[in-house]
């Protein structure tokens, strides 16, 4: 008798709770006896009172507990998610806000961070991109100061060389001017100057090139991910191995959001996650950040972005696009140390890998050549048909090469303007996005993490103003595309 009344009382208290879909949560949240619930929560809290003196033990103890509540939940623990977690904790301290990172794959087998080429360059045309990657370079340079002497991402300061045909020459020169103004160091080279510096290159069809002289090159993205993840964890962010599958909605008449009819606002403050054993649990949050890479759209749709009405009818324009990277070796007359990362105007790129005669190359395909995105199979005929002819034309020595292997990864491709989507979603008061970087995300991860943490903790961008890269640009129709995308 008492049990049923209590259950009803409980239902009245949490009256307006609705589930988005018919997903059954574990019994935990539905109609639990309020007294039991109180006791359970108290019990959990008491366990935490006895705080071990050792920070390490304390963190381990926290990690054991499943976080039912947190201040910020981050979906996706790749470079973006980990960087956001690191900055949030860095700015508030170990005992500051509680940050939970939900990552479905602890091995990071398919995440783009681990599969990326790790290029660092400032040669963009959009101001924000240049500023972000300048900060990226600064962050990598001072990595040891932040994360201790063992943190190393193997930066190769070899520069980027962007080649341009006649048609793009003016743009390349304009871009270089802007980059220099903002603090990048590069120089525009004529055909002859390129030939002089890189005698192994055939540049007959090239008009000009732009060579990065400082802070450009490549690094090991896997190390960066490890450093960021360990750094965030050490500062007290909690990683849980689970897949974010849904949100719980709640009608909140008391919240007024501009552009939403009063009384209709449906808030989200609970995330449903699926544990590896299939069990579903929920995490209550104050803020949620979607940094799920190429799967961001999927999870955004669960928050009704793109499926709702009004502001929610705009979907997140982020798609999976498969990109191949091939490794090959060249035994004779191969260019050696003086090989920057070369990006051709045909959108083919290659660079040295290690010291031997090994190179890696890739290319952004034409729209009609877009490969299927069901798996990460590598199509070697694409190299033979599309990349190799361009490669040989650029570097005659690549006539005799042997393809050793290759891999592929997914770009989180922003079909609207091929740039990151950073900042709050206009409908929700507590949902932030950090995705859509379309192939230049890893170098921006430090800056994006800092920017999101500023938005949440300071209420505003404090360092680099990324307002123009927010979701609102889809509403006012101001695409922020790069004038040359690689």
């Amino acid at each position, binding site marked *: 008798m008492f049990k049923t009344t209590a259950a009803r009382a409980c239902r009245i208290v949490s009256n307006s709770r609705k589930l988005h879909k018919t997903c059954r949560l574990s019994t935990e949240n539905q109609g639990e006896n309020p007294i039991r619930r109180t006791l359970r929560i108290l019990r959990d809290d008491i366990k935490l009172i006895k705080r071990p003196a050792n920070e390490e033990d304390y963190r381990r103890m926290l990690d054991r507990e499943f976080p039912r509540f947190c201040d910020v939940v981050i979906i996706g623990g790749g470079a973006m998610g980990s960087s956001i977690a690191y900055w949030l904790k860095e700015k508030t301290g170990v005992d500051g806000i509680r940050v939970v990172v939900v990552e479905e794959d602890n091995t990071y087998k398919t995440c783009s961070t681990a599969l990326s080429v790790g290029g660092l360059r400032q040669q963009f*045309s959009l101001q924000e991109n240049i500023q972000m990657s300048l900060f990226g370079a600064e962050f990598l340079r001072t990595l040891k100061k932040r994360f201790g002497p063992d943190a190393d991402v193997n*930066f190769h300061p070899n520069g980027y060389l962007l080649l341009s045909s006649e048609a793009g020459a003016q743009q390349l020169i304009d871009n270089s001017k802007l980059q220099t103004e903002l603090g990048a160091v590069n120089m525009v080279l004529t055909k002859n100057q390129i030939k002089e510096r890189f005698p192994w290159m055939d540049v007959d069809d090239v008009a000009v090139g732009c060579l990065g002289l400082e802070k450009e090159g490549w690094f090991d993205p896997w190390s960066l991910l490890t450093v960021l993840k360990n750094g965030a964890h050490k500062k007290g962010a909690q990683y849980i191995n689970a897949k974010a599958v849904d949100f719980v909605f709640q009608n909140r008449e008391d919240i007024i959001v501009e552009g939403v009819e009063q009384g209709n606002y449906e808030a989200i403050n609970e995330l449903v996650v699926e544990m590896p054993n299939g069990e579903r649990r929920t995490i209550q949050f104050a803020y949620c950040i979607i940094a799920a890479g190429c799967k961001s759209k999927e999870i955004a749709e669960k928050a009704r972005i793109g499926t709702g009405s*009004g502001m929610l009818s705009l979907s997140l324009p982020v798609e999976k696009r498969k990109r191949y990277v091939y490794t090959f070796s060249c035994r004779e007359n191969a260019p050696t140390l003086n090989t920057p990362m070369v990006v051709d105007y045909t959108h083919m790129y290659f660079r040295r890998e290690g010291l031997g005669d090994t190179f890696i190359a890739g290319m952004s395909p034409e729209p009609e050549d877009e490969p299927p995105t069901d798996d990460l199979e590598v199509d070697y005929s694409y190299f033979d048909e599309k990349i190799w002819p361009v490669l040989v034309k650029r570097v005659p020595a690549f006539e005799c090469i042997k393809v050793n292997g290759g891999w592929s990864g997914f770009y989180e491709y922003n079909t609207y*303007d091929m740039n990151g989507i950073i900042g709050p979603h206009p409908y929700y008061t507590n949902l932030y996005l950090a995705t859509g970087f379309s192939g230049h995300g890893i170098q921006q991860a430090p800056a994006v993490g800092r920017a999101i943490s500023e938005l949440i903790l300071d209420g505003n961008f404090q360092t680099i103003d990324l307002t123009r890269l927010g979701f*609102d640009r889809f509403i006012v129709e101001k695409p922020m*595309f790069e004038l040359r995308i690689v």
Partner: protein
Amino acid sequence: MLKLKNSLSFIRLPVGRECACKYSSSNKLEITFDKPPANALQSREGPHTQVAEEKYEPNKVATEELRWRTPWHQKEGQYHSFLRVFYTEKNRRSTLQRLQTQIDLSPSAIKKWWAKKKEESEIVQQAYLPERNQILGNELAAAHFIVARGGAVKFFNHDEWVKADERGKYDLPRFYEEGWELQAIDCADMPLYYEGLVNLYDLRNVEWLSLNGCENMDDWCVDRITNQFSHSLIYLDLRNCPNISARGIGCLYKLQKLKILYLDDFMKSTVYEYTCLLLEEIMPNLEIRSNPVTFEIK
């Protein structure tokens, strides 16, 4: 735990600009979003747009143009609730953080803290001062910078090295003068930081540079040096710089005239050795030496 101002965050988009959506007097959204704006979400296919449509330039879009709604409290007839008193534009995040971090007073922590403070102040002191370069010109400014920190420099057409004496006194012009052009810079054992290297930009013809014993030099510094002196440097000494790895050595090919390079021990590791070999291969004039030599500097 730090409480986040959850329900207050909806005031985050100030300034009223009605762009895509107009409001009627009843404050209702007139253009509904049910149909996505005409070309908004059509994918702009192809990353190959070399030059985008004419006139529209992403860099010219002002931040304000992205604001399309007036925050509730800025609308006519609306006002801040009295709770606003507790909400400040400027967050006191750092104060909160300080309050929440435990203070560690153990000797090792204090030592670490002190070392960090010292390093920070040293880095600030090595920063680029525009006034210094305006008064002295690049060459003399760089000379002052180096000599005041215990290094030595030599100019073309001057036979003597300039170095500060025990009391830190040295003899260099205090204003710009013609005819001072740096030939050699000796930074041996100086606590030189990456940030300090900015003072060495735009030197006309430095041929000789020693960073022997500058422990803070790492690959990023080498990256910067190879750019700064790419046109002129002939002699470079990188001994006793434990933080410079093979990757830094690998980009020394950018120093077009380099002839002599001193390294600790190029057999340090196979990668290191191989890098040196490759470097000598593409720079036929280069000689890499790794036997210790001493220089006398007056």
